[in-house]
């Protein structure tokens, strides 16, 4: 048992080595961290402006302090004079807000309700309706379940994530995600949905009988230009867009939903090394499993039973 105490103490001592190293070697000044956050936000919103012809919305963050950070929504491929922002508080007064564009984009004021927000831009011209939509997550308090927000009808033709990745999560390559395609609240069967990514993937999906399309996020980061670029917390990302068209009543509708996705879950991870170090730990504990010749404690146990 001395050995067990020794091993535990040694393990913690080992852990303290990088801690001491880190304390003596400031690795990232605060300014750089802030830049990383901004870079990360830009990365997640996508850097290229010309990778798709479909309408998309991009989120830009500026400012150093979280409390003072300014968030702006920029539209591409659509001419709109405002952004409609919806919160998860579907029964509250803050459920729907209109954000007016200025030269730098539509400023997303600090939200009263945290959690997921649905953002959409709309353009109507000559019998054609364009809608761009995306989701923004706010860390403010009072977040509510966003399912009702997602499902409440906001436009005629809609692409709705089923579900959207939860907090501290994201779309990632090779993962399977579902989206509902509906028109005036009713699922569209066998509806064609175009998929494009900033990394160059172009594909087409078709909805099933429930109006669902299943998208396996493309694993196209190998060819991406930003493969080795630095991002917040070492995470890489690119944008993707889903778009669908539908004509009814003499009006043509085109709706797009865009978001960002990251590399495969095992990108920059090694399962073999992970299993190797796990086995190493197991071997370290293996001596504890050996039977001892002396049965001192066994005697104590017998005595205890007589107590």
């Amino acid at each position: 048992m001395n050995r067990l105490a020794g091993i535990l103490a040694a393990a913690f001592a080992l852990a303290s080595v990088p801690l001491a190293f880190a304390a003596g070697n400031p690795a990232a000044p605060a300014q750089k961290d802030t830049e990383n956050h901004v870079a990360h936000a830009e990365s997640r919103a996508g850097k290229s402006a010309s990778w798709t012809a479909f309408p998309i919305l991009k989120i830009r963050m500026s400012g150093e302090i979280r409390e003072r950070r300014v968030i702006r929504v920029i539209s591409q491929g659509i001419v709109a004079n405002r952004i409609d922002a919806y919160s998860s508080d579907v029964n509250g007064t803050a459920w729907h807000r209109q954000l007016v564009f200025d030269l730098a984009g539509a400023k997303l004021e600090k939200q009263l309700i945290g959690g997921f927000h649905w953002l959409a831009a709309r353009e109507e011209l000559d019998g054609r309706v364009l809608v761009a939509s995306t989701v923004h997550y706010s860390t403010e308090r009072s977040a509510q379940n966003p399912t009702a927000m997602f499902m409440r009808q906001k436009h005629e033709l809609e692409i709705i994530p089923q579900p959207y990745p939860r907090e501290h999560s994201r779309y990632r390559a090779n993962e399977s995600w579902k989206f509902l395609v509906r028109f005036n609240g009713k699922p569209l069967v066998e509806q064609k949905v175009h998929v494009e990514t900033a990394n160059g993937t172009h594909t087409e999906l078709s909805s099933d009988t429930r109006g669902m399309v299943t998208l396996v996020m493309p694993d196209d980061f190998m060819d991406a230009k930003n493969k080795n670029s630095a991002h917040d917390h070492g995470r890489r990302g690119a944008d993707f867009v889903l778009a669908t068209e539908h004509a009814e009543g003499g009006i043509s509708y085109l709706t797009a939903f865009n978001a960002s996705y990251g590399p495969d879950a095992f990108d920059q991870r090694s399962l073999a090394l992970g299993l190797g170090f796990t086995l190493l730990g197991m071997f370290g504990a293996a001596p504890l499993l050996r039977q001892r010749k002396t049965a001192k404690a066994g005697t104590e146990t017998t005595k205890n039973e007589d107590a």
Partner: protein
Amino acid sequence: MFKTLFPTLTRLRFTIQLLMLFVTVYGGALLGSYVVDRISQTLPSLACAFDKQTGDHCILIVNQHQLHHRIGEALAKAQEITYKVFIPTLVSVGTFFAMFFFLNKAFCGWVCPMGTVQEIVYRIGRRLGRPLHRFSQGNVGRVRPIKWLMLLVLVLGLPLLAGMGTVSNDFGDSYCQVCPSRIATTLLTADTEQIALRTSSGINFFFGALGNALFGFVIIAALAVRQPFCRICPLLSWNALFQRLSPMQLVKRQNDKCDKCSVCEKACPMDIHEIGREHGRKAFHEDCTLCGRCVEYCPDSGVIQIKFFGIPLFKSSRESYKQRVKLETPEGLPKNKVIWLAPAKESQNG
């Protein structure tokens, strides 16, 4: 009916542990996809946020994020520390305490998925006839400070320094990177992502290697040592900070027989020798997880009790002690049951 289903406190606790294991590992499937659907996001047990199906989150990841992203950043920019910065931290700690208030450290002994996994492994170890290693009174004192170091360094210190920019962002969730519950609970959902080592930076790799080795060590050690990780778990120390503020308390009154008995010490999975030798406040040690085994195995009626607002929920009795030892030794070795390998022996250091 209740007595038939749960003839012993251990049976009741193990049933609740299995139920809570399901809730903390797979509960998201019942409660919903989003974090806001979770029970509290500040659970006083190691319900891992990296588990995509979890029904709740461990308080420690919330603490680390707040120190990293809010307090640390604000300190680094020399801004005034306003209520806007501290309120979120206070709210999460307050939410944690609202839950902790009623169950106290029973979150460790009855709810924590990592505790349950270790107990199950230990039971397997008894069936496999592996020896039991116990910490002597002298040696257990060497291990106990580690949980406080884990809390101060990995949960509080490094995330704060990361937020201030003093150390790399990779230290922002340093405890989570070494927590064995992160690997155990995600593996239980057939997700192997967390056991794969992150190779994006040297720090990530080192923490990951340490975490994986610790996980491997704990899983094997749990075959022969009761609750090996619980002894150094920062949540044990975090919960200990609030231990005296809860109406749920372990109470032991002075009894002359205690000097000659020590059965409760042997029953204690945390090797708290004070339970056999002390009484009053000292008997309810900071390492106690309120599992209640000392209550079950105390042969004298009413000496040890678990009380809630002063009302006894469980109390020791000669009758239940006799019933209990017929089924299992204080060390957890089942009686009259099939042992798969050689019968176990116990060893004690010191």
